[in-house]
C-alpha cells in the first residue's frame, strides 16, 4: 500500500496514485513547517488515515495552510551586503571576500544546528569551488567539460549561503532568503552570469534552467 503527500494537486488528479493528501505548502516543504513536530504529526496522521480507505483512488485536501512569516517579523539578516564588491572587481576576489564574510556566520549556524550541514555534495571544498568559479568568470569561460563538478559546486555554495544567512534561530521567510541570495550576493550574481552564458550556448542552453530558478533568470 502507498500513501503520501501531493504538492501539485493537478498532477495528482491526472496520474491517480492510490492515496494522496494534497497540501497547500510551498514546493520543497511537504510536511509544512520546519522544526514544528506537532504540525508535521498532524500532516502525517492525515496521510496515514488514507490507508484505512476501502476503495480508491483517494485524493484528500489537507485543511491547514502554513502562513508565511510576516516579513516585518523575520529576524534581521546577519550579513550586510549593503556595499557589494565593485563591479570592476575580479569575480575571484569578490567571491572569496564574500566567503570570508560569511564563514563565521556559517560556523555559528552549523553549531546551532548541532553540526548539521547540507554542504558536501561536491568533492571539493567551498573555497576551492568559489575560487574556480570566480576564475571561470574572470576568463569568461563555461565549464563545458565539468558540468557535474559545476552543478555540485553551485549547489554547495547555495546551501552554504542559506545556512549562513539563517544562522540566527527563527522562522525565516524562505522567499526573503532567496531574494537576498539572488539579488544581493556576488555568488547569486555569479550563478546568474553563468546562466546567461549557458543560454547563449546553442548546445548547453537547457543547462541554464537547472542552475537558476525561472523566477530570477530570463
Amino acid at each position, binding site marked *: *500500500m*502507498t*500513501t*503520501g*503527500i501531493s*504538492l*501539485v494537486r*493537478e*498532477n495528482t*488528479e*491526472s*496520474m*491517480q*496514485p*492510490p492515496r494522496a493528501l494534497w497540501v*497547500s*505548502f*510551498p*514546493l*520543497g*516543504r*511537504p*510536511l*509544512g*513547517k*520546519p*522544526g514544528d*513536530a506537532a504540525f*508535521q*504529526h498532524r500532516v*502525517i496522521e492525515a*496521510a*496515514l*488515515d488514507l*490507508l*484505512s480507505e*476501502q*476503495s480508491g*483512488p483517494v485524493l484528500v485536501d489537507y485543511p491547514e495552510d*502554513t502562513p508565511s512569516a510576516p516579513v516585518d517579523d523575520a529576524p534581521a539578516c546577519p550579513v550586510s551586503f549593503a556595499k557589494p564588491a565593485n563591479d570592476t572587481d575580479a569575480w575571484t576576489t569578490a567571491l572569496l571576500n564574500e566567503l570570508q564574510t560569511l564563514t563565521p556566520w556559517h560556523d555559528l549556524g552549523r553549531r546551532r*544546528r548541532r553540526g*548539521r550541514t*547540507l*554542504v*558536501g*555534495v561536491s568533492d571539493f571544498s567551498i573555497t576551492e569551488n568559489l575560487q574556480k568559479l570566480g576564475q571561470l568568470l574572470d576568463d569568461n569561460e563555461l565549464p563545458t567539460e565539468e*558540468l*557535474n563538478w559545476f*552543478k555540485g559546486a553551485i549547489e554547495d555554495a547555495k*546551501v552554504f549561503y*542559506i545556512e549562513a544567512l*539563517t544562522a540566527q534561530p527563527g522562522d*525565516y521567510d*524562505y522567499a526573503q532568503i*532567496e531574494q537576498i541570495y539572488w539579488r544581493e550576493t556576488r555568488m547569486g550574481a555569479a550563478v546568474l552570469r553563468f546562466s546567461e552564458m549557458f543560454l547563449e550556448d546553442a548546445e548547453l542552453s537547457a543547462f541554464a534552467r*537547472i*542552475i537558476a*530558478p*525561472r*523566477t530570477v533568470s530570463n
Partner: protein
Amino acid sequence: MVRLNDLADYERAHLLAKNLPPLGPPAWVPPTKEIAELRIALITTAGLHFRDDPSFEFADATFRPISGSEDANNLVMSHSSVNFDKVGFAEDVNLVFPVDRFRELEADGKIGSLADVHYSFMGAGLNPDAYEESAAQVARLLKQDKVDAVFLTPV
C-alpha cells in the same frame, strides 16, 4: 503555497506540463491490518543521500538506500531542480524526510514498526515510466523487509 492560480504563468504551465495519464491499470490494495500494525517505509523523490554516496545525475532514475539506523541529519540533497525551497530542509530534515516523526509514532505504538531501509529517488528531468525498473527493484526490497505500506514525500 502551491495553488496554481497563485503562480506566474510560466510556472503554472511548467507544472501543468507534468500532468500525465495514470501509469497503468489501477493498483488498489485493500487494507488488511490496522494502521497501528503496519510496517512502514519512507520514500522520497527529494534526491537525498548520505555524503559518501554518489550524487544524483541531472536526470537519474536510480535510487539510494537510506538506512533507518543512521542519523538522518547527515543526509544531503543533490536534486537537479532549482525551483523549490531548500531553506526549510536546511533547518529540519524532517520537513522532507520525517523519519524522527515516524520513530515517535513507532515508540507510541501508532504504527507497527519502521522499515530497516528507506529509499530516495531524484524526481526531475524524467517522466515516471523511466523509473519503472528501479521502482520494481525497490518494491522487491520492500517486500524482503516485510513492509506493509509506504509513505511518499515529493519536493
